[in-house]
């Protein structure tokens, strides 16, 4: 009895600790959401607060008027994320398969070829020069897809380990049945590798969706502004979002912006998709991390 009581007390204390943690984690998000739903004039008086003093959707209706730019940015980010994730998964899986095969004579060389890129890099400047001088990606969708994110060495090695742990009998019997290497990869290896494909796919999706650095250094044409970049510009300079419209009545538009609340509404618009996709993400994220950790 005594033991039970004691342990249920400690369970309650545990829950208190975690509830505090949950509050600390969610607080900033709630603050931003609340400001975006507030009336601008009440913010001038009492600042940002966790519960809107006077509820208003003015910020969102302003963003709705200005939706062309935001939807365009969404479109850029969405296409980059989809194209980038698919290509990067394909390339990663294509490269990881041969170096997972014991029969492949050059597998050690090609493994090291990837591994060395994790250990040493040329630094930002030469990397930037390659993408601006050798292949000119400036102001193109390519600038958001090609650099850096397409494939990370770690992903290749994680996938190789997963492939290696699949039973080698699969390969042998498929070879006897007359399947070529490519067919084995596509029809046998990949379907069995969904956990690792999902994990790395999700990490790549997140990386492409959240990327702002490539926009920052390669993009100056507003046609290719990604969602994160528009968000960043809005945070630094609230006028940015209306200047974008480039309409004749820009100045009257500027005067009518509820600047503080629009800024935060922009953040909510940017956070939205991630939070909505989260329940789906979360399952694989925990699974994937477990796989990775067991391997490590």
């Amino acid at each position, binding site marked *: 009895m005594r033991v039970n009581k004691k342990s249920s007390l400690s369970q309650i204390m545990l829950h208190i600790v975690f509830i505090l943690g949950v509050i600390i*984690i969610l607080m900033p998000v709630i603050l931003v959401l609340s400001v975006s739903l507030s009336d601008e004039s009440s913010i001038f008086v009492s600042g940002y607060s966790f519960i809107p003093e006077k509820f208003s959707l003015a910020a969102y209706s302003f963003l709705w008027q200005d939706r062309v730019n935001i939807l365009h940015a969404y479109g850029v980010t969405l296409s980059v994320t989809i194209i980038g994730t698919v290509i990067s998964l394909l390339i990663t899986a294509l490269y990881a398969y041969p170096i997972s095969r014991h029969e492949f004579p050059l597998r050690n060389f090609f493994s090291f070829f990837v591994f060395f890129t994790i250990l040493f890099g*040329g630094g930002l400047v030469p990397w930037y020069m*390659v993408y601006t001088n050798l292949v000119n990606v400036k102001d193109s969708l390519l600038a958001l897809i090609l650099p850096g994110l397409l494939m990370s060495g770690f992903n290749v090695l994680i996938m190789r380990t997963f492939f290696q742990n699949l039973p080698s009998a699969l390969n042998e019997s498929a070879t006897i049945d007359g399947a070529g290497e*490519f067919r084995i990869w596509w029809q046998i290896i990949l379907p069995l590798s969904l956990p690792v494909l999902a994990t790395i796919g999700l990490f790549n999706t997140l990386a492409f969706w*959240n990327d702002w650095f490539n926009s920052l250094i390669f993009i100056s044409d507003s046609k290719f502004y990604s969602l994160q970049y528009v968000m960043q510009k809005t945070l630094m300079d609230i006028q940015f979002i209306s200047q974008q419209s480039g309409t004749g009545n820009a100045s009257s538009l500027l005067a009518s912006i509820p600047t503080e609340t629009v800024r935060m509404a922009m953040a909510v618009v940017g956070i939205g998709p991630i*939070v909505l996709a989260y329940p789906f993400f979360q399952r694989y994220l925990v699974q994937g991390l*477990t796989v990775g950790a067991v391997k490590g």
Partner: protein
Amino acid sequence: MKPHKPIRKFLEKNKVLLLMMLPGFLYLILNNYIPMFGVIIAFKNINYAQGILGSDWVGFKNFEFLFNTNDAYIIIRNTLLYNSGFIIINLIFSVGLAVLLNELRNKLAARFYQSVVLLPHLFSAVILGYLVFAFLSADYGYLNHKVLPWLGLEPMNWYNEAKAWPYILMIVNTWKSAGYLSIIYLAAIIGLDKEYYEAALIDGANKWKQFSRITLPLIAPVIITMTLMQVGRIFFSDFGLFYQVPMNSGSLLQTTNVIDTYVYRALINMGDLGMSSAAGLFQSIVGFVLILSVNLIVRKVSKENALF
């Protein structure tokens, strides 16, 4: 002709596998290997008219220049102090969080807490910038408008207050990373053999004893690997954290400038190719040496935990 025969035979036999690797191979050359050769920029006085190869060699002048500035001391100090702080604080918080998560008996609640602690990991640096701004904005931020008056203190212009930023960035980094790291440790703890704990219970070991005598020693390999991987990268920083969260504020550079942001600023704002690539090369080489030495140490201590 004769020596070519084995090569041709090899190519024929492994044609498909080699073709499969081709896209990745070419990409690595473009994205990683050509920039490695680009490090010669650090030893040249780049002149656009002459091109990279045609520009004059200047030896170590760019490095001398860099290390003679005040910036060199500041960015190296900041990079090392921040990263050491991050490693220690993340370790304490994430291992603690993992152990506590593992103690929860209500599985539904545990899943909910897990989802919440992972959430910040999904946010981009830009979103982090917004979340911090909501608290720190000089005019209407929660801290200036609510917390400081309540404490009887004067409002501050946080984006000009360099001294505050080490604390702010520590808090932000912990908020963002601890939950994610804790899931990795949690996975390791769940994988442990339950029998140790049953035996310990029979011997009357309390929770603290169980933690310090069983859990900690058993997950030590995972902790060591994770920590050493971070130590090996101690010369590299999370660019987004140091650029977006302080909103690129010039008056904060004393405490927010790290090697990565310095290289970026020197490249974009000043167009100083030589000095910024010297700083970048310095960072890469020290990082490389660190990773190799860290790995050597791990191999000495326990071979199976070595990174390679």
